[in-house]
């Protein structure tokens, strides 16, 4: 089951957090009333007076003369969104931000053991969000992202809407076709045919719908039946793994540099291991005395985790680096982080017998000496009488 958690626009939430007195008052975000800009979002009170998103601020002022106009605080908005996602990430890693800014999806399937009672889980989610951003969310639960989003749009903070799989079709039937992602042409066409609710749309057979509106429109038809094939792409919290060591007195010999780099690699590796992550690139910053800092990057074919692997990658680059002055500081940063579990277990090798260590070695050799150093050959004996045409060489 997928849960859609819907909160007001994060910009609104940010404005309320900074000025709680604005709650319950018509609030319009996008700029000051006299500015030539459009409405980014508006509070429910302003909407009740006819303000909609995208409307010019001038027009919005005419609809809601007593509303408060504010520019959007992008930084605060991003913090609110981050906070919302992080709060939900504590429940499950299967969290994905929705296309609407205040909408987040969670997959609940893995939470059944910990939270056997779904009502308690939804209440806990509501409480956690309230504690984080001072807003009670509306929650909808269904088997697909689309239906859960519709359910959340019609839920209230006090009463979540839960749609069981077998009731999805009936649930959607009563809503107007506007809840579907229709383009203007399709909407107009459907209205001309007198199809104003999803129930009427469901009454048409799939082949007939395809004949009339084409293959592309079938996505809309499937959504009308509750069938949403989009996959929930999990969001990952931003992680920064960096280790740094000041060198006092400044170091000017490679032995000492290697020793320190090894120690830093061990610290970076410990951080990676503790978070179950691997890195595909290590960025080394060498701060030199009275000379601009030197940046070196070591890339890996697979996400690396252990200190030995990291140091093996950075050592040759350190030795080749053109260091012209004693070093004052060395910094190692793990970039391009990935879950370490994507690595190949030692017992499982690819069908062609190549271990990931060999693939990594080949990648390193190619990076150092050029892609044509290590090649693979393919023979197509029927291709041509000339040997050069029968044998295909390509970089490994």
């Amino acid at each position, binding site marked *: 089951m997928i849960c859609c958690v819907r909160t007001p626009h994060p910009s609104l939430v940010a404005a309320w957090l900074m000025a709680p007195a604005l709650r319950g008052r018509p609030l319009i975000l996008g700029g000051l009333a006299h500015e030539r800009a459009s409405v980014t979002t508006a509070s429910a009170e302003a909407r009740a007076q006819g303000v909609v998103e995208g409307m010019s601020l001038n027009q919005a002022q005419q609809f809601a003369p007593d509303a408060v106009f504010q520019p959007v605080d992008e930084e605060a908005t991003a913090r609110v969104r981050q906070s919302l996602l992080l709060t939900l990430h504590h429940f499950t890693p299967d969290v994905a931000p929705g296309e609407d800014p205040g909408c987040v999806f969670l997959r609940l399937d893995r939470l059944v053991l910990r939270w056997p009672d779904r009502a308690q889980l939804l209440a806990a989610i509501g409480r956690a969000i309230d504690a984080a951003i001072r807003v009670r969310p509306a929650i909808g639960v269904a088997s697909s992202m689309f239906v859960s989003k519709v359910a959340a749009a019609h839920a209230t903070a006090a009463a979540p809407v839960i749609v069981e799989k077998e009731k999805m079709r009936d649930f959607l039937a009563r809503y107007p076709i506007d809840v579907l992602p229709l383009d203007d042409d399709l909407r107009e066409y459907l209205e001309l045919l007198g199809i104003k609710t999803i129930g009427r749309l469901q009454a048409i057979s799939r082949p007939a719908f395809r004949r009339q509106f084409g293959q592309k429109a079938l996505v809309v038809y499937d959504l009308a039946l509750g069938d949403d094939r989009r996959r929930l792409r999990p969001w990952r919290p931003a992680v920064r793994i960096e280790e740094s060591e000041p060198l006092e007195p400044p170091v000017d010999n490679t032995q000492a540099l290697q020793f320190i780099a090894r120690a830093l690699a061990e610290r970076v590796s410990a951080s990676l291991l503790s978070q179950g992550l691997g890195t595909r690139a290590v960025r080394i910053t060498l701060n030199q005395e009275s000379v601009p800092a030197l940046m070196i990057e070591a890339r890996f074919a697979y996400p690396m985790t252990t200190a030995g692997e990291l140091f093996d990658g950075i050592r040759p680059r350190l030795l080749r680096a053109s260091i012209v002055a004693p070093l004052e500081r060395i910094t190692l940063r793990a970039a391009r982080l990935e879950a370490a579990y994507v690595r190949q277990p030692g017992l499982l090798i690819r069908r062609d017998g190549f271990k990931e260590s060999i693939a990594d070695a080949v990648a390193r050799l190619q990076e150092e*000496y050029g892609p044509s*150093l290590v090649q*693979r*050959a*393919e023979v197509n004996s029927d291709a041509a009488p000339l040997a050069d045409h029968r*044998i295909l060489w390509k970089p490994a």
Partner: protein
Amino acid sequence: MPDRLQQAITVLQTRFGSAAPRPAAPPCPARPTGIPELDALTGIGGWPVGRLSLLAGPRGSGKRTLAQRSIAAASREGPVAYIDMPGRLDPEFLSHFDARLDHLLVVRPKSIKEAMASVRVLARAGVDFIAIDLPRARSSGLDAELPHLLHRAAEADCTLLLIHDADAEDAIRYYASLILSFQRSAWVFRRDGDLEGLQVDAAVVKNRLAAPGLTSRWIIPYPIP
């Protein structure tokens, strides 16, 4: 080792302790060459694992053909690499010997240094068998690289096979555990006049793992396309 000899050694070891006779070299695992005659000639049943073997001889003596047959046999077991400095590897020839080309990495280095770095890295990464085809010209810098190379190969249980057209240098001869010298004694033709293969005389010039000095003569057939 015959049972009676083993019994005699056991008796001597009981009587004299560390002063008793013992094998000159510990048993070394071997990787089959793919040619039974060659396996017999090496004395240990194939190329020694974790060591360097040298195939020496003039051009046209069949050593590269044998090396490629060994690579084909080894590729059926796991990942292999061919360091092809002269650019003479023929994948089509390998495919006639049922080589698994998806297991084969062909390295084409521009210098000895690149070649040796590639061997070190690949051996460490887990490539089981590496054939190094050196150019005819003098391979400067090889003698300094060989000890590191052999250390890596021994650590990783990687079999190294070196093919050299010219007379191998002293350093290679010193570090190689097995040296096979090849001489072509005759071309073998079919009745219709097509070349069928070559007859070679092979001699074990050096063998640290079994008795040296063995010689053998056999016909290496060329694959019929």
